[in-house]
C-alpha cells in the first residue's frame, strides 16, 4: 500500500511532465507542412486504405497460428483518433495540428495541467493512431502521456478548499514559474498521492515494456550469438560489400565489441527491475538509458525512442534526487527562479 499510496513531492511528476512535453513537441513539430500527407484521409494512407485495412484486421485475427500470415497478424489494430473527425477537411486538420501543438506547449509549461494533461494525452493518442506505422517510439509516447494524464487528473483532488476552477482545470501554472505558484494552493512544494500513483504506474509499466522487449529479443538467434548490432552498423543500402570486406582483418575485434554491446542491452532490459528502484544503481539505470539514446539515434536512426526511454527512466528518481539535480541546475543563470523548493520530510 505504501508503494502506491504514499504522498510524494510532485517535483518528479512536474519535471517528467516538462521533459515529456518537450519530447511531444519535438515529435510533433517536424510534421508541420506534412500534416495532410501523414495524417489526412487524402494522404499517404487514405480513406479507402483505412477501409481495406479494416478487412485485413479481421483476416489477421482469424489466422493466428498460421506462420505464412504472420505479417497480417501483427498489424496494428485500428483505433480511435480525434483527427478522424477533421482528417477529410484540410483546413480543419491543419488547425487541429497547430491547436494540438499549442495544447502540448501549455501542458509542458504547466498551464491548467488538469485540462491540458487530458488534452495532451488525446493529442498523443490521436497522432499515434495511424495503422501505417507501428514502432516503439509511438508506444512509449502513449505510455508517458497516459500516466502523466492520470497524475494530473488526480493531483490535489482531495483538497477540500480547492477553488472550482482549479479542481476542473488544475493550477496555472503548476511548476515552471515558481513565484506565481507561491500564492497558489497547488504549489510544487506539495505532496500528492496522485503524483506518486501515476509515477509508480509509469515505472511498473516501463519495467514490463523493457523486460518483455528483452525477452522477445531472445527469440532471435542473432541476439544469442551477439550479432544483432552488426546489422544496423552495416545497413543494406548504406554499405557496399567491399566496405564490409575491408573490415575483415579486424573481424574478431569487431564481433567481440558488438557481442558485448548486444549482451549489455539484453542484460539491461531483462535485468531492469533489479536495478531500476535502487538509488545506488542510478548509474546503471541512467547510464544505460543515455547509451541507449545514443544507440537508437545513431545506430538505429530512431529519433524519438532514446529520449522517451531516458525520460521514462528518470521517473524512477526519488524527490530527494530530483531536488539534488535541481540544486545543480541552479548554477544556470535564471533557472534558480523556476525551480521549486524542497518539501520537508515531515510535510503532509
Amino acid at each position, binding site marked *: 500500500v505504501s508503494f502506491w499510496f504514499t504522498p510524494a513531492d510532485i517535483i518528479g511528476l512536474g519535471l517528467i511532465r516538462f521533459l515529456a512535453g518537450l519530447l511531444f513537441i519535438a515529435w510533433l513539430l517536424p510534421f508541420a507542412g506534412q500534416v495532410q500527407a501523414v495524417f489526412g484521409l487524402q494522404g499517404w494512407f487514405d480513406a479507402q486504405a483505412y477501409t481495406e485495412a479494416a478487412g485485413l484486421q479481421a483476416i489477421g485475427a482469424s489466422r493466428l497460428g498460421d506462420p*505464412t500470415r504472420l505479417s497480417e497478424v501483427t498489424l496494428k489494430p485500428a483505433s480511435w483518433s480525434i483527427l478522424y473527425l477533421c482528417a477529410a477537411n484540410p483546413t480543419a486538420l491543419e488547425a487541429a495540428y497547430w491547436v494540438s501543438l499549442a495544447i502540448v506547449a501549455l501542458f509542458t509549461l504547466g498551464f491548467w495541467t488538469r485540462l491540458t494533461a487530458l488534452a495532451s494525452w488525446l493529442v498523443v493518442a490521436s497522432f499515434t493512431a495511424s495503422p501505417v506505422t507501428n514502432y516503439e517510439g509511438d508506444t512509449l509516447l502513449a505510455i508517458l502521456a497516459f500516466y502523466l494524464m492520470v497524475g494530473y487528473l488526480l493531483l490535489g483532488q482531495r483538497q477540500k478548499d480547492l477553488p472550482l476552477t482549479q479542481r476542473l482545470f488544475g493550477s496555472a501554472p503548476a511548476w515552471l514559474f515558481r513565484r506565481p505558484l507561491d500564492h497558489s494552493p497547488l504549489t510544487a512544494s506539495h505532496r500528492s498521492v496522485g503524483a506518486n500513483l501515476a509515477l509508480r504506474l509509469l515505472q511498473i509499466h516501463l519495467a514490463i515494456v523493457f523486460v518483455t522487449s528483452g525477452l522477445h529479443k531472445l527469440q532471435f538467434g542473432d541476439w544469442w550469438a551477439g550479432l544483432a548490432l552488426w546489422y544496423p552498423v552495416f545497413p543494406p543500402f548504406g554499405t557496399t560489400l567491399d566496405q564490409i570486406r575491408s573490415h575483415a582483418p579486424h573481424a574478431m575485434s569487431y564481433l567481440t565489441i558488438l557481442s558485448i554491446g548486444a549482451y549489455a542491452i539484453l542484460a539491461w532490459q531483462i535485468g531492469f527491475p533489479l536495478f531500476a528502484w535502487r538509488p545506488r544503481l542510478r548509474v546503471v539505470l541512467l547510464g544505460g538509458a543515455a547509451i541507449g539514446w545514443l544507440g537508437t539515434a545513431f545506430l538505429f536512426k530512431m529519433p524519438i525512442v532514446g529520449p522517451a526511454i531516458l525520460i521514462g527512466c528518470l521517473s524512477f528518481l526519488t524527490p530527494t534526487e530530483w531536488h539534488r539535480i535541481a540544486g545543480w541546475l541552479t548554477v544556470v543563470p535564471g533557472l534558480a527562479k523556476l525551480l521549486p523548493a524542497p518539501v520537508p520530510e515531515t510535510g503532509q
Partner: protein
Amino acid sequence: MARIRSTPADLPRWLVVAGSILIVCHLIAVASAVLATVSGPWVTFEGPSLSPPPSFARAINDVSGRYYLKNLKLGDNYHFASNAPGPPGVFVEVRLKDASGQLLKTIRIPDARTNPSVRYWQALVVQGLAPDQLVPPPAGESVAAPRKTLETIPIWDPGEGGTLTIHRVPEHLIPRDRPAVYRPTEWSLVLARSISRYLCRVHGAASAEFLRHTRESYHPALWFMEDVQPGAFNELVASYGEMPK
C-alpha cells in the same frame, strides 16, 4: 498556505481498496496483452511453427485488450519489430505517368529531401512493404462451385531483367516446380495502392508504377568467406504494377 491533504493515514480505507483493485486490474490487463501473443517460429517435427498464446492470457486480453487497453492506446504487446535483427533494406520508387503513359516524375521514398523525423516515418511506412509471404504448395486440386470461379491469389513471378511482377493464379495452379513461392502481403498491396493514389493526386498524374527495391542484410559470415556468390546481395526489384489514380 493550503496543502494537499493526502497521506496513507487520511485516505479512506474504501479508497485504498478500490484503488488497489483498479491498479491490479490495470496491470493484469497490461500483462495479459504481453502474454497473449503468438511466439516463434519454433522448431517442431513438422517444421518451423508459431505457438499460440496461453489460453488464460488470450481470454483476458480478448476482453481487456479490446474494450480497455485499445481505447487507452496501451494495447501493445511490446514485441517490437526492431527486435528482429537484420531486416532487409527497403526503398520505393514511384514512376508517375500522365494519361498517355508518359513519365512525369519519379519519386523515391524515403525522400532524402525531407527532415529526419518525416524521413524516418516514411522509412517505417515502406518497411511494411518488405516482408513477403510464403505460399504453401496446394494440398490438392480445387474445383469451382457451379457458376463460381476459383479464388486467385497474387504471387511473385520473375519478370524481365529479374524484376518480380505480380501474377494472379488460382490456388491449385500455384507453381510446384519452385523451391518456394512468395506472394506480397495483403497489407503491402493496400499500402502500395494508397501511396500511389496519394502521389497521383498531389502531382496530377494519371497512374503510378510502384516499384519496391529490397536488399537482404549482409551477414557477419562475409568476413570469414573466401568468395561471395555473385549476385548474392543484389538489389531485388519487385513491381506492384501500374496503379490508376
